[in-house]
């Protein structure tokens, strides 16, 4: 099992409430995935690139990190640290050097992008949400995941969402059976993953297709042909999110749409607190069919 939630807001005035709405959805999915939880939130763009990093020893790891990074990339750096995570904002163009420096320092890279921030840890979803103050976060859209691990260890790096390119991330309910083969195929192309996890390979596959010129829709279509196994995928991009289920479609999925939002969840329970849900259009996404919403 695993739980997935996603929320795409159609109205700007709801943006300050995104974190609050997503947190309720995430916590409702606790019994589908009690061992870890994570969220990718697409918030305000600052003109720079946001790099989210994690450390088990944040007090020492994050002290003077902005100044050290500033010296390396020779540009302005801001830092926002929350619990085990920190978001460093660097000027566009310097992110590659910044990420290499941060990885060298032993920090774990959660993701990077103009608007995306990723927060994920092991523990119950309610504890993870409280640790990062997810309720207080605003944004245009976000996706979240509650994990019941099958394919790799219960660690921060094994938690979802997985990000393998700027502003792109993936959450997954299911298991991939050809992920080792696909990992080797991608490595030959110079696309590398950071964990042993099957979902990260799925994320890297989608990122690699997009980097080769495919649209999000085409990349998601490609998962149906090139990835073997069970999956309900929700993928986030800077402008929206996409959904695809494998042709067998035994992993559950339900969607809801109103004039205010499009919501995705593994189960209807996650929608119960959304405003106007009683009048929403609620449906189950078809197998082997790509859906996406972009602004």
């Amino acid at each position: 099992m695993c739980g997935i939630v996603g929320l795409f807001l159609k109205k700007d005035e709801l943006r300050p409430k995104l974190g609050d709405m997503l947190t309720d959805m995430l916590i409702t999915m606790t019994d589908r995935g009690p061992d870890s939880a994570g969220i990718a939130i697409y918030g305000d763009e600052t003109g720079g690139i946001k790099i989210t990093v994690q450390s088990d020893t944040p007090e020492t790891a994050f002290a003077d990190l902005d100044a050290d990074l500033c010296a390396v990339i020779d540009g302005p750096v801001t830092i926002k640290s929350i619990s085990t995570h920190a978001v460093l904002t660097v000027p566009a163009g310097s992110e590659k050097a910044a990420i290499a420096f941060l990885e060298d320092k032993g920090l774990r890279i959660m993701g990077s992008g103009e608007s995306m921030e990723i927060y994920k840890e092991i523990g119950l979803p309610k504890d993870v949400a409280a640790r990062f103050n997810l309720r207080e976060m605003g944004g245009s859209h976000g996706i979240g995941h509650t994990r019941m691990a099958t394919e790799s260890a219960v660690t921060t790096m094994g938690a979802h969402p997985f990000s393998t390119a700027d502003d792109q991330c993936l959450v997954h309910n299911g298991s991939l059976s050809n992920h080792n083969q696909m990992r080797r195929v991608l490595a030959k192309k110079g696309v590398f993953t950071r964990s042993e996890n099957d979902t990260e390979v799925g994320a890297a596959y989608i990122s690699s297709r997009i980097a080769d010129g495919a649209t999000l829709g085409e990349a998601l279509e490609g998962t149906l042909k090139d990835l073997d196994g069970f999956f309900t995928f929700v993928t986030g991009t800077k402008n929206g999110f996409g959904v695809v289920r494998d042709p067998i479609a035994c992993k559950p999925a339900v969607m809801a749409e109103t004039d205010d939002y499009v919501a995705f969840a593994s189960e209807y329970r996650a929608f119960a607190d959304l405003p106007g849900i009683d009048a929403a259009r609620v449906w189950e996404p078809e197998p082997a069919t790509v859906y996406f919403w972009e602004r």
Partner: protein
Amino acid sequence: MTNTLDMTQTELRDINSTLQAAAKAQANAEYIITNPRGSHAMACGLDGPLDVTIQGSTGYYCAGMNKEATVTVKGSAGPGVAENMMSGTVTIEGDASQYAGATGHGGLLNIKGNASSRCGISMKGIDIVVHGNIGHMSAFMAQKGNLVVLGNAGDALGDSLYEARLFVRGTVKSLGADCIEKEMRPEHIEILKELLEKAGADAKPEEFKRYGSARKLYNFNIDHADEY
């Protein structure tokens, strides 16, 4: 007298205990459940005459193992609704998720919206009427009973079918192994007419096609020995 139970005030287990006791009491009581919020296993295991209306959408396994009771969901139902139903009536006003009515032995499952994949999988005597469409692999290994679909059916309808009857008004994306279209004889029109009436479905029996088992998988075929 109608009793109302509010799921924001009462725990699911208490609600199910109350309903199960009321069903056993054979008193034909009426219950309304408010604020179901997609909860799992609602109104399951009812063993006696009882009328339950759920005011909203339900999660996994609603009205499972139902016997004699009438359960109405005024929203959509999650996976496995009316699984292994023995008798009674379960009505879903919205859509039903995968494997609706799986392994059902009897009674009527009436789905006013669409049902997704594996509807009526391994059904054993239940009647299922779906007013909308059904998904892929529906009626897989279905043994007995009737599956009536007013809309369209997805891929591999009736794969490895035994003796259940399948009636589809719309298109069938593909038939599963050993499932074939069959002649609609007067007795089938009669069965269908009765089922459509019971389900309150606005359709004429003559508009449907019947599908059933070709019965080629019942016995080992020596000509296929090389295929294993």
